[in-house]
């Protein structure tokens, strides 16, 4: 029992530090969010202001923008820590590294994924989405963006410190992001056509559970290899 309390306490300790750091580096934090807003706002300008067209492409536009915004933020996850040596210290703590890594991923989602979820209704309205599609956009983002952070952490750890790591990272993790994109947009399109989105949402939830279990553990092993 006491060891469980210890794990929770160390998770909280790292999470607090990460959030404090995020607050100190808030300009970096805003970059993915601003990217997300700009990309989506450019679509009505590019494809024309017809509401019918915008309504059809809206789920795909929002989700592709969310994928790319997350991708943009991933290099921040471990790079600074690699250069100042705090990553080494993280791996040298007595607590299991995967718990501390999970805290870092949690902080990444809170500062990258969650803001996208919160701003999405505004952008959905600008793309003329129906209220129900807007609701499902938020639900899929809420289920899907944690997956983007979790899978992204594995990719960021594997490509840490490599030259041209950014391109490699994209090639490595975009295939793993594609199921999220398909299920999420599928769910939004299904509901706006009057069908049930239960299947797609269940698959998204299953993917989330799978990555929650395995991603922190795989990431900590990948980091040990990258730091070797």
């Amino acid at each position: 029992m006491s060891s469980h309390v210890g794990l929770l306490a160390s998770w909280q300790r790292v999470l607090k530090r990460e959030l404090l750091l995020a607050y100190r580096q808030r300009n970096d934090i805003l970059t993915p969010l601003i990217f997300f807003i700009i990309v989506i706002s450019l679509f009505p300008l590019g494809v024309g202001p017809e509401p019918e067209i915008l309504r059809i492409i809206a789920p795909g536009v929002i989700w592709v923008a969310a994928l790319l915004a997350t991708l943009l933020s991933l290099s921040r996850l471990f790079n600074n820590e690699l250069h100042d040596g705090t990553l080494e210290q993280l791996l040298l703590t007595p607590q299991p590294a995967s718990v501390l890594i999970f805290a870092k991923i949690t902080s990444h989602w809170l500062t990258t994924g969650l803001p996208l979820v919160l701003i999405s209704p505004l952008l959905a309205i600008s793309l003329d989405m129906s209220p129900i599609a807007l609701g499902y956009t938020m639900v899929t983002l809420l289920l899907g963006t944690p997956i983007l952070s979790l899978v992204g952490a594995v990719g960021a750890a594997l490509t840490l410190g490599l030259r041209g790591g950014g391109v490699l990272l994209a090639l490595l993790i975009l295939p793993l992001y594609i199921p999220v994109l398909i299920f999420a947009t599928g769910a939004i399109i299904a509901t706006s056509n009057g069908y049930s989105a239960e299947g797609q949402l269940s698959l998204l939830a299953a993917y989330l559970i799978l990555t929650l279990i395995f991603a922190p553990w795989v990431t900590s092993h990948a980091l040990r290899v990258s730091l070797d």
Partner: protein
Amino acid sequence: MLQANTLAGERSGQRIFSDVSFSLQNGDLLHVSGSNGSGKTTLLRILAGLTLPAEGEVLWHQQGITANRDIYNENLLYIGHRHGMHSDLNALENLRLSCHQSCNRAKLFSALEEVGLGSHLKKPLRLLSQGQQRRIALARLLIESQPLWILDEPLAALDVIAVEWFSQHLAQHLQGGGMAVVTTHQEASFISHVSVTVDLN
């Protein structure tokens, strides 16, 4: 007790040292010497469990360190070439975060006071000099009580006063039954306490 058996180290696939063996008892200080590129940092990283040796093994109380990582990490304080502090956080925050045992505010204050950073508590680290940052990293030696220290060039960028402070504190640690592995190129009074030497040349 820390024991190294026939360690060999590689850097980008090339063997840089081999057949390094030693054993450290309570109160022992190991000095790793060697020219630039001879593999001092690699050896220290192997001893800390950050890099896997190409050959050989490191034992902590007769147990392999990678198999019993959590026990080993509880007993180890490693300060590397990169001092392991966040440049956007201030001295107090950094020190509190790297403290794994019970650390109250008074203890942190007095540690920073002792290393001479008492008047720079609220500045983010990136505004401090290299030497000041190194002093904050070394303040960890005051607030934690691990028996084994592994310190990679702890004196880099330190002034004469700080070097002397470090030497005295290291001597105290050894007298209290602690162990330490240190690399340095500088002359310092703690060299007289060295009981084991590994020369990588």
